[in-house]
């Protein structure tokens, strides 16, 4: 098997959390205010249920999604489905790419540098994007201690200034803003689609479904803790604090003496975030390989990254517009590919049994 359940669990905990620590807290506090925890809980609950469905499905079949669709609808349909998934994963990597660029410029440089300084990331994404699932799993193993140490460090530095009463009263935010927040930030919740892609590529053992769901819950707990801390530090002005993870530890009292040591933790976190980000590209390349039958993932990875490169060069200064655009309609593909299709995979299985 190419990837182990343990490695998928790490992805569901650490990549899941790492991908939601940049702009997600800022945006969610803007949409849902002090109700951001409820809004996040709604998203995590829905996605968690889908994760459980896909994890449970893997206990019933050893086939990949491609094989399941092929058995039910034929190879052409399977290729088309994978083609759509490839587009979905590419779309999922657009906004994080812009966020990363801005985040990198904010925490790695004293002055705002040229776009050029961010572009070397494409050397990495082209290379890593072509790697198989085995490599994804091993990288997740490496990222696990890096995330734990760096997050613990940032969290420790953040706790000195946090005031959790900022979240009170718990029922202050109206239901509309809570659900609206969930919908507009849906683009950060794509983990069920990841798990669907891993289907058939790992060996399922008894109890693994519970392990996967608990891992996702672990990732959710980290994010919820951070959301509470972030809102606890900044309260009503949270929505104006960009790149949340780099802001909570700013007021650590010993910083005057020891300097911005939190930056080292943030750099380590950025390392994990890079791997979390590149997972979308790796899965897009995987889907394209199956869709096109083209045997060279390196060339497909280059093509995917060239497209993303073109987007970031063309829309370098339009992050806000792109963010609004994605918040406005990205929930549709997310619901389709990360909720509806994973659930529909159960239908595939049943139909095959009946036939």
């Amino acid at each position, binding site marked *: 098997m190419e990837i*182990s359940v343990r490695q998928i669990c790490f992805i569901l905990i650490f990549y899941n959390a790492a991908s939601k620590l940049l702009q997600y807290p800022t945006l969610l506090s803007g949409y849902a205010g002090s109700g951001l925890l409820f809004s996040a809980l709604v998203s995590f609950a829905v996605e968690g249920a889908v994760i459980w469905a896909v994890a449970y499905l893997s206990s019933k079949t050893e086939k990949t999604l491609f094989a399941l669709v092929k058995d039910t609808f034929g190879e052409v349909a399977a290729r088309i489905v994978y083609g759509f998934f490839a587009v979905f994963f590419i779309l999922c990597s657009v906004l994080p790419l812009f966020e990363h660029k801005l985040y990198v410029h904010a925490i790695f440089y004293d002055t705002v540098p040229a776009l050029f300084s961010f572009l070397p990331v494409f050397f*990495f994404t082209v290379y890593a994007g072509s790697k198989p699932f085995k490599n994804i799993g091993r990288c997740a193993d490496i990222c696990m201690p890096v995330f734990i140490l760096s997050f613990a460090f940032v969290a420790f530095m953040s706790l000195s200034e946090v005031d959790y009463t900022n979240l009170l009263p718990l029922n202050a935010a109206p239901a509309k803003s809570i659900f609206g927040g969930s919908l507009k930030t849906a683009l950060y919740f794509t983990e069920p689609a990841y798990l669907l892609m891993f289907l058939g590529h790992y060996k399922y053992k008894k109890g693994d479904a519970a392990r996967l769901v608990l891992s996702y819950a672990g990732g959710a707990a980290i994010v919820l803790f951070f959301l509470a801390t972030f809102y606890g530090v900044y309260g009503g002005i949270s929505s104006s604090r960009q790149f949340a993870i780099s802001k909570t530890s700013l007021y650590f009292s010993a910083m005057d003496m020891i300097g911005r040591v939190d930056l080292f933790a943030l*750099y380590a976190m950025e390392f994990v975030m890079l791997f979390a980000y590149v997972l979308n590209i790796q899965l897009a390349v995987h889907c394209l390989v199956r869709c096109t039958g083209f045997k060279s993932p390196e060339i497909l990875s280059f093509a995917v990254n060239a497209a993303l490169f073109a987007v970031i060069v063309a829309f370098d200064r339009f992050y806000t517009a792109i963010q609004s655009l994605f918040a406005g309609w990205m929930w549709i593909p997310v619901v389709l590919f990360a909720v509806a299709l994973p659930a529909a995979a159960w239908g595939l299985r049943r139909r095959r049994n009946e036939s």
Partner: protein
Amino acid sequence: MPTLEKNINSVKKILTSADILVFEFISEGGKKFAAIYADGIADKALLGELVVKPLRAAEAEDGIEKVRLLLASPEVKDCNRIPDAVKEISDGNAVLFVDGEKDFFIIGLKSPPARAISEPPTQIAVKGPREGFIEDIKTNMGLVRKRIKSENLQIKTIKCGERSDTAVALVYIEGVCPAGLPEKIEKQISENEIDIIPDSSYISSFISKRPRSLFKRVGTAEKPDIFCAKICEGRVGILVDGSPIAVTAPYMIVEDFQTGEDYYQSSYRATTLRLIRAISVFIGILLPALYVSAQLFKSQLIPFRLLLKISSSVQGIPLSPSIEMFLTLLVLEVLNEASIRMPKYVGLALSIVGALVLGDTAVKAGIISTPAIIIIAFSAICLYTVPDLVETTATLRWIYLIVAGSIGSFGLVVLTGFIITYLCSENVYGVPLLAPFAPLVKGDLYDAMTKSNLYTLKNRPASLRSGDKVRLKNGNKR
């Protein structure tokens, strides 16, 4: 019946060199003999004592079998082909011709010049065995045999090198080493045709799937205790005649952070030292790069008071931080290279010139700042905490420095991601290079960056897929 002269001439026709000596003698009974050997690598005293003396004293010898019984040497081989005789003479053995006989004897008298067994300079131990391998393969094989007396220890000798005909010994324990691995390694070595094998590093290149890789793909050992421990874990060891450095495969990067001494002292101390080594290597690689990127792109990385100190030091320095660091590192590498190559006494003068003239004067002249020298010096010391990785880490330090000078710390993060992705995709004979961290092998973590006590290390490393998993059984469960 071939005459003695005819046999001697056949050999001398091929081995025309002046150091091939012929010693003819006659027994009491009047039988003629001739011993041919290469001067300098065959033991003449043994030839006299074990071959010439008993044969000379013999009354009459009818037939080659009787002659064989008279020979006192424990290593006697029958032979009847002149090319084989030539090969054995070149190898250091002697050939004994008997007048009137077609067959002849190969007498094992090989005694090439070799230094005494001593402690290897790169693996000095305060606690634990001090014996090190030497250039003679037979001595090295003996050092291994001395430690592993198991009947399952296999030493398979092959020849490599078209002209050097170097002996290469594959050492492994049957049943512990994964099945098929020695054969795979043997095939990879045999596939190469090369003139000469001057050192085991040639064999390392043969068995590395990617010889161009920046990262090591085989392990090395200079001490038999470490070599034997690796063999007992399920690896294949390779001894090469003429090289004091043994090679082991499969290899995991974590091996280089472990030293033999770790196993002879308390696990707490060993763990502390391993962590220090790991941290030192990271500091050694990253410190010059981080300093440059902090100065150029993110001064907040440096604590404020330290920043004030640094800024006063770098004031007036005509070079940019990256060029300054680059040049300082270059000077260090030049001094390092020169001090190794120069004669001992000149080397002493060189270190004075390097430290005082270059270092002190350059700072006083305002060409290089003090922090740059401190950082490079500390980095150099840090890298040598893991000497087996210095080739790789010193190159990585250059690469990181160039990247830091170009795009700052973000480049360092991206480069690290790139390297980790590469290392995660690499296997050596089916064993992941980054094991037991990626993939995570829980049982093997007890002897990775930390070192647990002996009773925790009951099993052989699972990453190596040894045929026999258990290495320690004890009656009292502890």
